[in-house]
């Protein structure tokens, strides 16, 4: 069978000594960078880009990819232990991971995220291998109308994820969309809300925004909060990593479902691990028998986003390699790395460069296995990294954030963006406004605008034509149903539990 031949070919490439070495380097660096709040895959990959010039293209891709999905493994560590996401796609993991950690179950959370990430990776790779051609052509049939509705669904799902009021979640999504309008409008060339500044023409740097909104705000809340943020390494023994049978029982289905959701979202350009994590969290919360457990340390709330984001990481390569369409900025860098070596990703890549494609795909297996091996015993190492007393740790984190933000464009303006969003993030905490939907609105806002405009052009101004398309109609119905369901279940909850739950992201009252 064709696919067996390809697998054999790929393994032959992936298991060579040099590719194994660089895969290991990649996943290790990836995890390390993921663990450290303030540095994300985008910054890391762009910084390590020049190293790849000296490597063979396949080896270069293997290493870069290792960094990419490795960060997803490490990102959850900081989310769980410090309530600061190590990477954007791990932001949702804070919601249940941190409460688990406060309940003394950090070890279990960390172990389960490694397992969940591995499972997500496995599912993602299988989808990638088996469905690459088929999925690509299906995604190709997605028109702007479908993209528009998918993204609106993603945003609505994101705002219903928060424990607080849905209105606040929706308001934050809208605020995020507004923040995304700052800069030059690609379709009309008009500079919106720039007030003459040239640095902001491309919009706010998303890394800087995220680091300010989540990282700096978290630090502000934590310093001198009276809460001892210092972990003791005694808390995390190897035995305490073992989850209970109940944990495992609860996790199976969420992991499988989320991996599937992640695989789908990873494929679609414009959506990726972050959206996948949000949506799968929302789905699991909806499907759980006791949704009130979410936000307070539900294991499902930890494994679902981690499976989803890893699956999405793997399937993100589908449009990147088979269509040449990068699903995200990071994927665009991957394409750049290929083009430096004279290889042009596209529908022909699979047939013309089978050693590259299948070697890369097989290296994902190697990488994910390495990551599980690295992460379970090395949890102690990563945790030790974070057990340094908080008063010593937080200045270092601030520096990582600042240098990280600066390094994307060598721009001190981006550091000012961190400053501004740090302030905003703190104010939002004061008013109990959830930050995560804002990030999502920011990321998807411009795309939604673009797709809506295009859809309108294609439909020649007929709004109803948008909804007549079958996929769009389905998506719209799901969105409306979700909204109705959420409001109704919130109303029901309020009757039983009258107080508004405090957001797990930290209460600012001293």
């Amino acid at each position: 069978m064709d696919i067996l031949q390809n697998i054999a070919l790929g393994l032959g490439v992936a298991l060579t000594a040099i590719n194994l070495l660089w895969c290991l380097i990649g996943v290790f660096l990836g995890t390390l960078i993921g663990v450290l709040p303030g540095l994300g895959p985008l910054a890391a990959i762009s910084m390590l880009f020049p190293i790849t010039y000296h490597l063979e293209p396949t080896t270069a891709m293997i290493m870069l990819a290792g960094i990419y999905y490795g960060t997803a493994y490490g990102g959850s560590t900081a989310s769980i232990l410090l309530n600061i996401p190590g990477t954007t796609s791990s932001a949702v993991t804070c919601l249940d991971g941190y409460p688990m950690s406060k309940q003394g179950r950090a070890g279990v959370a960390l172990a389960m995220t490694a397992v969940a990430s591995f499972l997500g990776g496995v599912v993602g790779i299988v989808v990638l291998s088996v469905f690459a051609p088929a999925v690509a052509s299906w995604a190709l049939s997605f028109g702007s109308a479908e993209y528009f509705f998918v993204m609106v669904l993603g945003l609505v799902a994101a705002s219903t994820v928060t424990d607080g009021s849905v209105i606040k979640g929706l308001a934050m999504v809208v605020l995020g969309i507004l923040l995304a309008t700052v800069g030059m409008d690609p379709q009309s060339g008009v500079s919106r809300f720039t007030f003459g500044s040239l640095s902001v023409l491309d919009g706010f740097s998303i890394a800087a925004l995220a680091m300010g909104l989540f990282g700096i705000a978290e630090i502000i809340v934590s310093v001198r909060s009276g809460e001892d943020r210092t972990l003791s390494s005694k808390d995390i023994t190897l035995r305490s990593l073992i989850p209970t049978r109940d944990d495992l029982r609860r996790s199976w289905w969420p992991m499988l479902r989320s991996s599937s959701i992640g695989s789908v979202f990873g494929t679609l350009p414009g959506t990726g691990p972050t959206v996948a994590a949000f949506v799968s969290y929302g789905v699991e919360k909806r499907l759980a028998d006791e949704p009130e457990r979410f936000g307070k340390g539900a294991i499902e709330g930890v494994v679902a986003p981690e499976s989803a984001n890893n699956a999405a990481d793997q399937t993100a390569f589908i449009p990147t390699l088979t269509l040449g369409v990068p699903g995200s900025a990071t994927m665009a860098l991957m394409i750049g790395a290929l083009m430096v070596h004279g290889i042009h990703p596209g529908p022909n890549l699979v047939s013309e460069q089978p050693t590259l494609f299948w070697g890369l795909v097989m290296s994902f297996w190697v990488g994910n296995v390495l990551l599980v091996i690295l992460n379970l015993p090395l949890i102690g190492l990563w945790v030790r990294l974070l057990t340094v007393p908080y008063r010593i740790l937080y200045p270092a984190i601030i520096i990582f954030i600042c240098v990280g933000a600066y390094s994307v464009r060598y721009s001190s303006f981006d550091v000012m963006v961190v400053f501004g969003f740090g302030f905003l993030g703190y104010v939002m905490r004061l008013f109990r406004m959830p930050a995560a939907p804002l990030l999502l609105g920011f990321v998807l806002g411009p795309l939604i605008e673009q797709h809506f405009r295009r859809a309108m052009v294609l439909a020649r101004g007929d709004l109803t034509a948008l909804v007549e398309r079958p996929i769009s109609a389905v998506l719209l119905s799901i969105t409306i149903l979700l909204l109705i369901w959420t409001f109704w279940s919130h109303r029901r909850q309020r009757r039983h539990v009258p107080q508004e739950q405090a957001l797990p992201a930290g209460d600012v009252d001293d």
Partner: protein
Amino acid sequence: MLDRRELTGGLLLAAVGAIVAIYGGTHYAMGSVISMGPGMVPVSMGVLLAVFGLINAVGAYSALSRGHAEPVLPKVKIAVPLVILASVLAFAILIGSLGLLPAVAGSVIVATLAERPIRPLLSLKLAAGVTVMAWLIFVVAMRLTIPLVNWPF
């Protein structure tokens, strides 16, 4: 004062939404739904935000009437946020003018001022340590080409 927090938050959102919508509407072409101009999203989203803000503010009143508001005055920390934000600002200013190493050191020193008791010796040692670490990670390992020190003379 929980309800007052909700009320203020809601009103703030409403104000932001209104300002954005008005500014956007007057400065950028709206176009129509069919062919959207640059102003359409800012205005529509601004209006939507204002609506959500108002709903939230109104919700604060019903919480009060339902007796769910807790009359606890939250103490808002001023010093810590100012210092932390100042340390980020310090980095932004110093890196352009004096280079990476002074920026890291300066930012760390400012950041440590947020903690009580202030321990100057610890601050200096930490600044030195983090600066070395930053050099090792960002310059040696990652080969970022940030000027280490810019003497402005």
